[in-house]
């Protein structure tokens, strides 16, 4: 009987296409929007991914990785003096203006690394060497900077080319690849000392202290010791990432906005699939009544209806997920908008789509089970 149930479904083309389209749209909307949301969340941790360190020490008022309340340079020494800390280095991070050759300005994220250890250096150099930033007024730029800072140039900016950061000349010594950050500005790496020259002067300039726990200590234990001894706030890398994500959840409308869109996808899926499937069952009620009269049990009819509902569900989910992946591949090539599709996301969407199908099937099944087979004799 199952092949007949499927044939009945596929032959009602209008409803079949409507059902598959509705579930495809719901899958696409929920998965794609959630993937973009996860992409944004990943971007909020851009600093942590690009300047890796097991411990991040900040001013106690700092709540997440994209905000700065500068500390004194002497705080690096205070952290280094703690028993549980193997090493600690200063880092500058700030958003500055760079001036291009055609006179236009672009915002950049300037990162000042400890010149001795280069801790926090970019992991993937495309051209040049990171050590060359020790040469006065030199920087390493990322691939996004090549794209952004090449405006007005006859050829893309490269090693040896010059541009201005905060009215000071900077020469490109290398090009690296970085993870995108929430602000979407390119990264410029230089030494900590030179970063302080590029950046506008303020009383305190130290953005972060990157540290490593001493042997036999966990990062968490070292953090607790740093906080106790210095009064500064110390996060493990993981904690800082989670705190950043939490901050965006609590302080921005981004999660709510995405949640609303995802919810709409769910509602659209429920409404279209539920309504269309119910009307499909209603239109076939006379035939279902005939099957019932001919001896088809409620259980057999329930399985037939469920098969129809889950078939359109699987098709809609498959097409919707396929379209999401195509979207992802296209945007990842361009780098915009952010996109992250961990396996849990399609899995959760699958469960939601199956829930929608179960709802739609139950509407139909309830009708079928209540149906008196004697309906077939009523004209």
């Amino acid at each position, binding site marked *: *009987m199952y*092949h*007949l149930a499927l*044939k*009945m479904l596929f*032959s*009602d083309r209008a409803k079949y296409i409507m059902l598959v389209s509705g579930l495809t749209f719901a899958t696409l909307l929920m998965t794609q929007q959630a993937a973009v949301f996860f992409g944004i969340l990943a971007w909020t941790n851009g600093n942590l991914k690009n300047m890796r360190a097991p411990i991040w020490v900040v001013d106690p008022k700092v709540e997440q990785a994209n905000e700065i309340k500068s500390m004194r340079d002497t705080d690096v020494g205070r952290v280094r003096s703690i028993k549980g800390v193997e090493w600690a280095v200063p880092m500058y991070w700030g958003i500055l203006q760079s001036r291009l050759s055609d006179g236009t300005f672009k915002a950049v994220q300037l990162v000042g690394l400890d010149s001795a250890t280069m801790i926090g250096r970019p992991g993937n150099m495309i051209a040049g060497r990171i050590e060359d930033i020790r040469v006065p007024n030199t920087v390493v730029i990322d691939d996004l900077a090549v794209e952004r800072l090449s405006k007005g140039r006859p050829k893309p900016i490269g090693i040896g080319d010059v541009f201005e950061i905060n009215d000071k000349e900077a020469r490109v010594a290398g090009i690296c690849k970085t993870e995108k950050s929430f602000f979407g500005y390119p990264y410029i790496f230089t030494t900590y000392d030179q970063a302080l020259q590029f950046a506008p002067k303020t009383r305190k300039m130290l953005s972060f202290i990157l540290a490593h726990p001493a042997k036999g200590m966990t990062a968490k234990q070292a953090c607790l010791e740093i906080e106790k001894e210095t009064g500064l706030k110390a996060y493990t890398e993981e904690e800082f990432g989670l705190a950043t994500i939490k901050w965006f959840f609590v302080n921005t409308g981004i999660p709510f906005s995405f949640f609303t869109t995802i919810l709409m996808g769910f509602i659209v899926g429920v409404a279209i699939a539920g309504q269309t499937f119910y009307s499909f069952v209603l239109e076939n009620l*006379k*035939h279902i*009544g*005939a*099957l*019932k*009269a*001919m*001896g*088809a*049990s*409620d259980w*057999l009819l329930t399985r037939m209806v469920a098969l129809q509902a889950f078939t359109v569900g699987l098709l809609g989910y498959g097409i919707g997920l396929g379209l999401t992946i195509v979207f992802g591949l296209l945007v990842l090539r361009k780098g915009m908008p952010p996109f992250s599709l961990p396996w849990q996301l399609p899995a959760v969407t699958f469960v939601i789509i199956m829930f929608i199908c179960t709802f739609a099937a139950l509407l139909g099944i309830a009708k079928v089970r209540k149906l*008196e*087979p*004697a309906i*077939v*004799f*009523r*004209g």
Partner: protein
Amino acid sequence: MDNQQHKIGSNEYAVQVHGVIKSFGSGDAKTVALKGVDFDARQGELLMIVGPSGCGKTTLLSVIAGTLAFDAGKVNVFGNPLHAMSKSETTLFRGKNIGFIFQQFNLIPTLSCVENVSVPLLINGATRAAAEKKATEVLEVVGLKGRENERPTNLSGGQQQRVAIARSLVHEPRLIICDEPTSALDKDNGAKIMELLREIARAPDRCVIVVSHDNRIYHFADRMTEMEDGKVQRVHETYKPVNFKDQ
């Protein structure tokens, strides 16, 4: 009504109905459709139930077919007491023992003729291949050889009713229930269908019950049960049923 005074459970009867009451609704809106109906149908006969609209013909047919629960009384179909069966037992019984022919054919328009005809076999657990093979054979019997893969909507009314007859016969049921089988057909097609149904009825251990308004086909009946106001009023012996014991 003397001929209604039979012994419940007798083997010569295909269907025995005794004192069946069926009402719809409740309170002031309660309507009693069957008011203690006594009725029988014999093996090897085509029995027609006739009467004015609203007299309870279709309700009685639904009760005999086991598609409608009734309030009181007894119904035996080939010795099987429907009144004592659970809902699932009745469903199983219907699937194995009763064939249905409906007023509007009730063929599934998205399925081919052979698929429509194979449905009762599939319900009874036959494989797809076996069901379609048997369905093809039965379609040939009803004169539709070569139309197996057509959709019902491409056939004439008479041909559609033949498909419905094939569907009612394919699982070799003992009781065939027909609800106004000729109402959607012209006179000639109606007569052909009734000839076919009468042939079908001429088999041992089988019975065809037809509910009809169509007085053009009354002469095809072996016996005619006339209903009025929820009761059997008269039974006309218009044809002597075949006595299989003598054959």
